[in-house]
């Protein structure tokens, strides 16, 4: 079968299977075996099938597009760089100018006109009206498939692990963390099926983001993922901390999504489409036509995929000029307007807006506060949702949306990543809760990925995303295993567990080594070694091209040191040395096999995921197939901050001198971090308590997580409460009395009116009638009493009307 039809079918089914599982469990969950035990099987079967389908898609992709080493780095990269500099690619250097594209495109080598292989289309059109087309569609390239395999694989591991971990939920649960008003602990029914129901919905939503063919669909599933996260963090919703954390995560994400909506509006309002790729349509006249997607609009193929402000945005920004120009001449003037820089801000806003959504989802500064709290959810959730997949969605979207991002946006992204990685790493230094260390580590690593993307390391960032997913889920599952054994999260009560839990200790060591990027320089290393080195190299390359942003490289290097320190601090405190709390130690035991198996599988992958096989097969080269068009070469541009940025080509970083420097820097910082951790927690040369004493202000500052929560509380929560109180006060103090007054006046008027009607009219009539009733016959009463009155009113009414007509009408209308 044709790959273009096969892939959407395979991935589409893989995508919809978890939805089917969700619906099944939703309706029949409690009936699936005792306490819904079989819900786990339904969910696991669905995700395993999805994994198989994704692997089939992966293999068929490899069959059609074999992965080979990409030959524009290393050996002749430097030569190319000088070539390109000499050739002076006008298209790449100035996106406001489109002249001379014809020969520039012709002189390009295979890289210059490189456009990635991607399949796209629509399954179903939700709505089509005017320019707006909302559809459920696909955009499949090697990144999509790789992410599909990754997500389904990790999700499978988590499903298996969770069917053991969530065992408690199979019967009634007494939640010791919830104390009711009567002093008892909460006793509730188990929620085993509900967990897998939410997990299935999550997998469906996550894959929806991955396969989405347009930004509207991305947004739909973006929100769905958010709501799943809310379900899962708040799984123990009776616990105050869990429900608060769930709400916090949801609300903080909404802040980012607000920015994303602005970005969507900017794109749609100016360009009229949200589709990534071009679409072939048959017009009303029967002619096949191509509707350009976002990528082609921003990087048109005819200009060698160089980034330029699309016509729609130029027209939008020059709306007043368009209005003054005859319609026929508008098209001719667009180039001039583009040269003036019109529309650049719109492109910037669109890019930053979309990035805002990624900031929320990927817990970047300043929206990073929700992720550590999200650890209130069950540990498998932390491993799947809050370390490996959902939080990576932000990085994925930046990668997917990369062609549309202008250099200024990339700079914003790079700095956001740098700040995030530094802040999170420093907080992780002093955290004592094992899951929180990992959570901050996740935030920090996500910062790495963002930074890598921001400095032009498209492959580096996404490569790190993949490797990180493996070792971070491994680390989380290990921590879950430890917590399962010790019944506490506090590392200060652990220690010496390596003897009791050898498998857990060993696999966690692998995870720690992977995350710090351990390896023998230039020979071999764990997966993190490759991905982190490429980030470092790209950051270095960027720093040299833009000396004033050299701090980005130092952030990466410093972050690597901090990472090594806090990861090994964690490992040493947990597994090495002597037991600190004997009560905990005595009860500790190795976890059951169903929980250990995923650890071993993930540990193997954490080692090998970064390797490139002889012949070139490897994740980095696979990703290279999908590198966005127009990002192969070094580009320059930028306007927003009044400076020109150079985004160095990524292949340059694989060559000298960057590669060697980066490798040695990484090795030195990692080794330094490990040694310092060992000195403090194993050899006890340096006393941690003494260090904390010496740097007490710093320590307090870090231990309180830079006071972010307090700051946001003071900045947003308190004013919001104040605003609400004010509004409520206005409502109760002003509006209510006003309404009451109004009602009172109405009552009064009505009362008067009714009184007049009853007393004067009716009363008169009735009184007369009643008075004469006893005296005479009914006829007489009516004749003498009320009727006279009534009939008199006819005459009076007519006369009154006439008076009004002759006075009032004339006075008011004559003019």
């Amino acid at each position, binding site marked *: 079968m044709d790959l273009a039809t096969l892939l959407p079918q395979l991935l589409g089914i893989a995508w919809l299977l978890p939805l089917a599982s969700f619906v099944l469990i939703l309706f029949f969950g409690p009936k699936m075996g005792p306490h819904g035990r079989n819900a786990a099987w339904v969910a696991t079967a669905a995700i395993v099938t999805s994994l198989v389908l994704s692997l089939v898609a992966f293999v068929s992709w490899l069959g059609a597009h074999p992965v080979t080493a990409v030959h524009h780095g290393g050996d002749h990269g430097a030569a190319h760089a000088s070539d390109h500099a000499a050739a002076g690619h006008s298209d790449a250097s100035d996106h406001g100018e489109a002249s001379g594209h014809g020969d520039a495109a012709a002189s390009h080598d295979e890289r210059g006109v490189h456009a990635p292989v991607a399949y796209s289309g629509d399954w179903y059109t939700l709505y089509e009206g005017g320019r707006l087309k909302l559809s459920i569609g696909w955009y499949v390239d090697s990144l999509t498939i790789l992410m599909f395999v990754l997500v389904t694989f990790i999700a499978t591991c988590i499903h298996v692990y969770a069917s053991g971990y969530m065992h408690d939920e199979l019967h009634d649960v007494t939640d010791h963390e919830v104390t009711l008003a009567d002093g008892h602990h909460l006793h509730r029914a188990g929620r085993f099926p509900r967990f897998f129901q939410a997990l299935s919905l999550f997998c469906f939503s996550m894959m929806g983001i991955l396969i989405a063919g347009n930004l509207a669909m991305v947004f739909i599933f973006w929100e769905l993922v958010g709501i799943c996260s809310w379900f899962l963090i708040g799984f123990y919703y009776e616990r105050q901390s869990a429900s608060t954390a769930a709400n916090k995560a949801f609300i903080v994400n909404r802040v980012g999504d607000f920015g994303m909506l602005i970005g969507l509006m900017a794109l749609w309002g100016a360009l009229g489409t949200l589709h990534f790729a071009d679409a072939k349509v048959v017009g009303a006249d029967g002619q096949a036509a191509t509707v350009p997607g976002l990528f082609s609009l921003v990087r048109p193929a005819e200009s060698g995929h160089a980034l330029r402000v699309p016509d729609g945005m130029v027209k939008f920004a020059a709306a007043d000029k368009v209005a003054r120009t005859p319609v026929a001449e508008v098209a001719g003037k667009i180039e001039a307007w583009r040269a003036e820089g019109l529309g650049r801000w719109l492109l910037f806003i669109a890019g930053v807006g979309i990035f805002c959504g990624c900031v929320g989802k990927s817990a970047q500064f300043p929206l990073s506060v929700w992720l550590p709290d999200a650890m209130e959810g069950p540990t498998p959730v932390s491993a799947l949702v809050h370390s490996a997949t959902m939080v990576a969605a932000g990085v994925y979207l930046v990668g997917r949306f990369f062609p549309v991002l202008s250099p200024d946006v990339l700079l914003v992204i790079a700095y956001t990543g740098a700040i995030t990685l530094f802040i999170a790493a420093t907080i992780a230094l002093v955290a004592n809760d094992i899951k929180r260390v990992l959570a901050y580590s996740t935030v920090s690593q996500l910062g790495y990925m963002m930074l890598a993307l921001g400095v032009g390391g498209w492959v580096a960032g996404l490569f790190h995303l993949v490797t990180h997913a493996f070792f971070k889920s491994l680390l989380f599952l290990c921590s879950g295993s430890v917590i399962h054994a010790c019944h506490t999260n506090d590392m200060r009560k652990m220690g010496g567990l390596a003897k009791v839990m050898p498998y857990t200790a060993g696999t966690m060591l692998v995870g720690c080594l992977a995350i710090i990027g351990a390896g023998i320089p230039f020979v071999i290393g764990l997966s993190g070694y490759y991905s982190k080195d490429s980030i470092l190299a790209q950051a270095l390359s960027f720093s040299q091209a833009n000396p004033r942003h050299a701090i980005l490289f130092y952030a990466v290097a410093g972050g690597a040191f901090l990472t090594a320190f806090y990861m090994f601090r964690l490992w040493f405190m947990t597994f090495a040395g002597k037991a600190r709390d004997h009560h905990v130690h005595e009860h500790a035991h190795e976890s059951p096999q169903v929980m250990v198996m995923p650890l071993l599988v993930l540990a193997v992958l954490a080692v090998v995921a970064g390797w490139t096989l002889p012949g070139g097969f490897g994740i980095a080269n696979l990703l290279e197939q999908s590198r966005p068009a127009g990002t192969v070469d070094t580009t320059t541009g930028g306007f927003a901050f009044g400076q020109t940025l150079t985004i160095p080509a990524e292949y340059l970083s694989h060559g000298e001198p960057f590669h060697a420097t980066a490798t040695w820097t990484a090795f030195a910082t990692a080794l330094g971090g490990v040694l310092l951790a060992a000195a403090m927690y194993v050899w006890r040369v340096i006393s941690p308590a003494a260090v904390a004493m010496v740097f007490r202000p710093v320590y307090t500052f870090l231990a309180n997580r830079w006071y972010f929560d307090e700051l946001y509380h003071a900045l947003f929560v308190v004013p919001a409460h104040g605003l609400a109180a004010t509004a409520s006060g206005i409502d109760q103090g002003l509006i209510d009395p006003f309404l009451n007054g109004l009602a009172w006046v109405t009552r009064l008027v009505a*009362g008067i009116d009714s009184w007049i*009607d*009853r007393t004067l009219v009716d009363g008169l009539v009735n009184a007369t009638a009643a008075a004469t009733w006893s005296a005479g016959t*009914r006829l007489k009463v009516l004749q003498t009493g009320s009727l006279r009155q009534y*009939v008199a009113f006819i005459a009076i009414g*007519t006369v009154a*009307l*006439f008076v009004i007509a002759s006075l009032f*009408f004339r006075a008011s209308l*004559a003019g």
Partner: protein
Amino acid sequence: MDLGSLLTGAISDTLDVSLPLFRVELTLAATIVLVLLCRMLPVLRWLDSGLVALGGVAFALWYAWCDLRGLPGAPWPAVAAAAVPASRELFGGLLIFDPLTAFIRFLLAGFLVLYIPFTKISGIPDREDGADFYTLVLGASLGMCLMASSNHLLMLFMAVEMASVPSYALVGILKGRKASSEAALKYVVYGAGAAGVMLYGISLLAGVLGTCHFPSMAAELGSIVGESPESFYAAASTGPIMVLALGSLMLAAGLAFKLSAVPFHFWCPDVLEGAAAEVGGFLSVASKAAAVALALRVAFGLGWLGGEEIAGASALGLADVRHFAVYLIGLMAAVTCTLGNLAAYGQTNMKRLLAYSTIAHAGYLLMGVAAAVALRGVDPEGCRRAVAAIAFYLGTYVFMNLGAFALVAVLRNQLRSEEIAAYAGLVRTSPGLVVAAAAVLVSLIGLPPLAGFVSKFLVFASIVEAISVAAERPLMLVLLVVGGINTVISLFYYLRVLKVMTFDPPPEDRIATPSTVWLPGALITALVVPVVVLGVFWSGLYAYAQLAGTFAS
């Protein structure tokens, strides 16, 4: 032209043109004869007069439906029926057949088809009085049909009296009850007074204009008003214009009596409180529909002759006439609406409350009429929409108000009381009835998603349209504001009834009567379901209302 050809012409006009288009009224008349025959002839005495009347009315409804569908531009045109002309004068100009006539006739016939089963189920009249009752109802309806189609002042007077006189007797149908007889007598005398005033006004108008035929009157009126060198109002203090103004005011007084518009509304609360709920339903729905149609007829008939190219010099004068009419009707509408709503606030008797409610609704309808007249000269399309809004309002009002009176009747049979206080806690024993009451009352307020909302919305939309184009902008603004405020005021007293039904505890001494048996239940359902359905799927009825609107073309 000799007498022979005149006669031949008159006969052929009557037989070929007028009578076929008059078949609804003829059917009603034949039904009256049949009902009376049934009562007189011992052979036919076993026949139930209600069923006979229902049969006749069903025929009338069918004919009315055929006439309506036969009109050019009807939404679901009749398949084989002969096309009916869009507008035709009947009987030498006494009556006119046009889409409005057809619509109101259809509405009245449809109302009767609902109304007769209602009276049979609720038990008033008893079998003894049945023939009298239905004769009177059918006679009054005949008069109302004529009201809706009259094209001549004499016909107008005849029709109004034809509709009124049977109503007087209907009010007193509860023989031996003091309140009923008192109400009837009040109604008779008040009606006679109003008729006298109206007749005086007619004689003044006819005397000055020299004709009673509406189009001829309009031509004459236009030329008289148009000829005066000063503006209409400057000239109004002297000469024939003053007489004309007085005459038209007196005519308006007669119409206002039928509409129960302030200041000619005094009879309404007393009469509706004294009469049986069944009679109240008849008076407040059918009579009102006919009166509104007649008001439209008079205002449009005397105020419009056609565009300037047709009406010539008199077009300018007629614009002044319409101006006068808009202010007269508009001010009356605002006062009527406000007074009706405010006075309803303090009522304790449900029928009296509904009486004030009908006064208020007459005000809303008159606002629509004012907007329609204001739009007549400036925006023909808008004018048609305004008439359509009124027609739609009348259509939904049939269900809302008849539903309300049917509820009163059913509850009277159940509780032996018509006081609002007696409804306390009804939700515990008859939840279905309370739900129906909620639908009807909320629809009368005009809240979505019920039919009353759509009608009110359409009328207000016409007023807004008039604000933007019509010359009487300030008045229309006032009407819109008054209408809005009144809608809010009306919330209080309608919802108070619901509050009593649901929240108040039931009285200790309530006689335990069997809950609604299926016939009254079916009746209420038949009346309430359209109130809900028309609030959502209103396009069908509105299509016919728009058809009625085309009479203003």
